[in-house]
């Protein structure tokens, strides 16, 4: 049932590599977006602060409240059509990859922002009060007291988000990005062995996600030891 592996293992390897690369980029840029927006959100004074906060709220609500597939199609079909442009590869990087990574990162950024918000809120109010009563400014208290604790609070949820990204990234196969899912489809078409091929693909995804979980747990333990 699994003898197709002998002929097609390079397809699985390439697809897996692509999935890992895409997940890493998404994690990196998604977290970056999440951090930037979280910082931006601290300033909710004045018209600019309030407007930016409102925009951040809309961004989070939209990307968490609509299917990733639709978001991907908007980036892949909708925006190019609206702007009347044709997507082209940049150097040797295919357009599918660029668009897929951008869509995933922007989507993940919304979740990460929300994770950070919860993590910051979970730090006891007394911590801010203790900092302020010592004469530290709000910024100093955030930087030295609140955020280090928030980061620790956030790690389990952030780790979970990384696992989700690995799985959800499979959706980019629909725009033709040759990730693990896409290549599995191709092998299925060539071998007519849907069961065997998708079981193998599922196993690889499972190895990736459980490996990622393990890494996150290890990292968390490290941090726990520091305090």
């Amino acid at each position, binding site marked *: 049932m699994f003898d197709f592996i002998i002929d097609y293992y390079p397809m699985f390897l390439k697809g897996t590599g692509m999935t890992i690369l895409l997940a890493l980029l998404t994690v990196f840029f998604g977290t970056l977006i999440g951090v930037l927006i979280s910082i931006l959100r601290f300033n909710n004074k004045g018209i600019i602060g309030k407007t930016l906060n409102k925009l951040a709220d809309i961004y989070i609500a939209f990307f968490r409240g609509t299917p990733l597939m639709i978001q991907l199609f908007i980036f892949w079909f909708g925006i190019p059509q609206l702007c009347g442009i044709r997507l082209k590869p940049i150097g040797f990087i295919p357009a599918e990859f660029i668009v897929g990574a951008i869509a995933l990162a922007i989507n993940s950024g919304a979740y990460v922002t929300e994770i950070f918000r919860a993590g910051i809120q979970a730090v006891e109010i007394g911590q801010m*009060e203790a900092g302020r009563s010592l004469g*530290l*400014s709000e910024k100093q208290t955030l930087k030295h007291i609140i955020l280090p604790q928030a980061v620790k609070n956030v790690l389990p949820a952030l780790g979970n988000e990384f696992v989700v990204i690995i799985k959800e990234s499979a959706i980019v196969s629909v725009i033709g990005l040759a990730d693990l899912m896409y290549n599995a489809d191709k092998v299925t078409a060539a071998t007519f062995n849907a069961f065997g091929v998708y079981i193998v693909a599922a196993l690889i995804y499972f190895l990736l996600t459980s490996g990622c979980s393990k890494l996150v747990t290890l990292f968390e333990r490290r941090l726990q030891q520091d305090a």
Partner: protein
Amino acid sequence: MLNVKKLSKYFHGKQVLHEIDLEIKEGEIVTIIGPSGSGKSTLLRCLNLLEIPESGDVFFEGINLLDAKTNLNEIREQIGMVFQSFNLFPNKTVGENITLALKLLKKMNDSQANEIAMNLLTRVGLADKFNMYPSKLSGGQKQRVAIARSLALNPKVMLFDEPTSALDPEMVTEVLDVMKELGEAGMTMVIVTHEMGFARQVASRAIFVDGGKILEDTTPDQLFTHPSHQRTKEFLAKVL
């Protein structure tokens, strides 16, 4: 030193402090007692503007804290505060808890700040805990560290909000002893407490708050033996 004028505070439209007038002089040890929900904590927290009153004024050495031009952080350096729930920084060691403000605000280097922290920890009997994290300490030890932390910047007055209420009974004394020594060293203190014995023994002045108003403001002896209000009598009958 601290001067409160016609201070009113509302929470969600409900008035919890009614035009409070209060003056605290240098060297005084003022204890604030009163029933739960009477506004003791709120009053104390208005003294360093952790709560912002809706009307009235708070002066520290003649400077109006509510004046937009006042640098509140500079004032707060001079007003120490100790909380019921300690509020130590759990991600920092005992030593770092104390040195943080020294380094950030006084721009001290490690050795200067550590020396001060060590002296303060010695004073509260915890010199051996310098490198420990707060989670490894007992409640009484945590509160003593918190006191040391708020003493680091050499404040002119210390505010205590029920510093022993979260402690197991056997740890109350060690904290009260530290506070007593502080008072003997001449520190100006405002203490919200349910420890009536301590209030009576250590305080130079006792204030009874009820329903967001100061009903009595007198000597501890007078308050405990000859309360002038019915409400005070009822309260004392319950807690003594």
